[in-house]
C-alpha cells in the first residue's frame, strides 16, 4: 500500500472486506448469494442503500441486515432493480419479429422464460409483441426474479405515465402495429397495463445464482442481467440457459453482452449480425 494517500486507500480496502463479510452473512443466514456478483456495481448499490438507511459503515449495516428482515428485503430490492424500459433497444424487438416470430409460428405451443425480469417492462413488451403476431394464446411466459418485492411490482403492471412518451416511440420503432395507448389505462401519474397481457404470464421466484433448470423453453431472454455477475457466475448461467433451451431454441442477450469466450459459444448460431439473438444448434 502506498503511503502517500493512505486514507482513501484504507477506507476502500476496509469497505471491500466489510462487503465480503456482509455478503457471506446474507448468504449463510438468508440464502441469497451475491458473492459472485460483479464487484464494482454491487459495491455502489450496497453503499447507496446503506446511505439511504442513514447508516455510516458497512459493518453497522451488516448488523441491521442480519437482525431486521425488512431491512434485508430493502437491500434485496435495491440489488435486484435494473432500471430498464419497455421495448429497450427497439431494433432487438424488430429483429425478433422478423426472424424469430416466423419460427415460433410453426410450433404448437411456445414457452418463454424471462430470466431476471425485474419490474416487468420487458415482459409486457414481449406479451404485446406476441399478441400482435397472433402467438399469445398459445404462449406461456415465465417471468422470474430473485426478489419477491420486484415480482409484486411486475405483476401489478403499473408504470409511470411520464415514461409513456419514450415507450411509445420505442414501440413504434420496434414494429408495433397498433396504438400503444390501446394497451394501458392512465390513472393520475401512472398507467396500468391491461390484465389480458398477463393472463399467460407466470411470475415466480428463481435465483440464477443458486437455482437449477425448471422447464424446457423455446425462447429464453436474459438481457442485461448477467452484466451484474462475475465471469464464474456468468458461466453457470450460460450452462443453465443452455440446459433449459429446447434444440433450436432462441436465446436473447443485451446489446453489450456476448457469447464470446463463454463455455457455450460454439453451441449457438447468431441470428442477426447486430442484435444479440442466438439459436441453439447443438
Amino acid at each position: 500500500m502506498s503511503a502517500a494517500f493512505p486514507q482513501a486507500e484504507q477506507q476502500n480496502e476496509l469497505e471491500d472486506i466489510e462487503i465480503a463479510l456482509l455478503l457471506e452473512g446474507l448468504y449463510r443466514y438468508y440464502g441469497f448469494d451475491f458473492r459472485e456478483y460483479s464487484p464494482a456495481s454491487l459495491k455502489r448499490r450496497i453503499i447507496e442503500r446503506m446511505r439511504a438507511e442513514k447508516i455510516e459503515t458497512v459493518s453497522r449495516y451488516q448488523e441491521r441486515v442480519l437482525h431486521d428482515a425488512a431491512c434485508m428485503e430493502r437491500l434485496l430490492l435495491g440489488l435486484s432493480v435494473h432500471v430498464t424500459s419497455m421495448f429497450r433497444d427497439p431494433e432487438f424487438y424488430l429483429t425478433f419479429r422478423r426472424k424469430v416470430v416466423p419460427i415460433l409460428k410453426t410450433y404448437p405451443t411456445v414457452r418463454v422464460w424471462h430470466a431476471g425480469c425485474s419490474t416487468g417492462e420487458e415482459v409486457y413488451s414481449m406479451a404485446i409483441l406476441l399478441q400482435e403476431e397472433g402467438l399469445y394464446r398459445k404462449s406461456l411466459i415465465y417471468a422470474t426474479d430473485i426478489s419477491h418485492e420486484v415480482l409484486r411490482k411486475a405483476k401489478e403492471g403499473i408504470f409511470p405515465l411520464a415514461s409513456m412518451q419514450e415507450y411509445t416511440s420505442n414501440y413504434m420503432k420496434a414494429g408495433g402495429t397498433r396504438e400503444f395507448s390501446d394497451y394501458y389505462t392512465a390513472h393520475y401519474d401512472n398507467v396500468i397495463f391491461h390484465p389480458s397481457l398477463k393472463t399467460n404470464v407466470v411470475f415466480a421466484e428463481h435465483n440464477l445464482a443458486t437455482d437449477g433448470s425448471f422447464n424446457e423453453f423455446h425462447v429464453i431472454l436474459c438481457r442485461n442481467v448477467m452484466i451484474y455477475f462475475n465471469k464464474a457466475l456468468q458461466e453457470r448461467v450460460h450452462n443453465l440457459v443452455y440446459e433449459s433451451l429446447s434444440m433450436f431454441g432462441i436465446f436473447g442477450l443485451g446489446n453489450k453482452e456476448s457469447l464470446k469466450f463463454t463455455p457455450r459459444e460454439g453451441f449457438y448460431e447468431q441470428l442477426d449480425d447486430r442484435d444479440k439473438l442466438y439459436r441453439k444448434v447443438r
Partner: protein
Amino acid sequence: MSFEIVVIGASYGGLSALQMLLADLSPEFPLPLVIVQHRRKDADDGLCEYLRKRSRLPLIEPNDKEKLEPGHVYLAPRDYHLLIEKSIFALSTESPVAFARPSIDVLFESAAAIYHERVIGVILTGANSDGARGLAKIKAFGGLTVVQDPKSAESPAMPEAAIQMTAVDCILPLPQIAPFLNERCHPIQRLLHAR
C-alpha cells in the same frame, strides 16, 4: 509511479472537443483511454463511428467484461453505466446518476477504486456538474486531475464545477490536453515524472 489508465468525461460540446483531443493523441499512446460522453439514450451508433474515423487509435464501445487493452480508446455505450474492475469493463443499468447514464462520476469513482494513484482523470466541456465528484475521488487516491480551461470550453459549467470541488493539478486549454497526455504517459516521461 507511472499511470495505467486515462479516463475522460465530456458532455455538451464534447463532440468537437473529443475530436480534437483524439486527433492529437500519439499513435503510440501506451495506455487504455476511457471516455464517457453524455448522449441521448435513443441515440444511434453515429457518435462511435464519427469518433472512430477521427482517432488514430482503435476506438470501440466495450462489451460487458471485455478486457482493457493498452493503446485502445473506449467509448461508454449509450444507456449503460460503464465501470472498471480489475482490468475489465463492467456495465450496469442502475438508475441514472444526476440524470446521466452513462455517468462520468460512476466511471471515475470505479477507476480510482481499482487503480488508485495510477489514474489520470480529465474533465472537458459540459453544461452540468457530472464528473466533479468522480474527479475528487481520483484526487483523494492521489491520481492526476486535469480540467479543460473553462475559458476554452464550449460550455464551462462542468469544468467549473470540477475546479470548485477539487484542487485540480492542471487546468489546460483544449489544444494542450492531448500533448500533455502524450508527454505524461510516454514511457520515458513516465520515468522522469515518477514521484
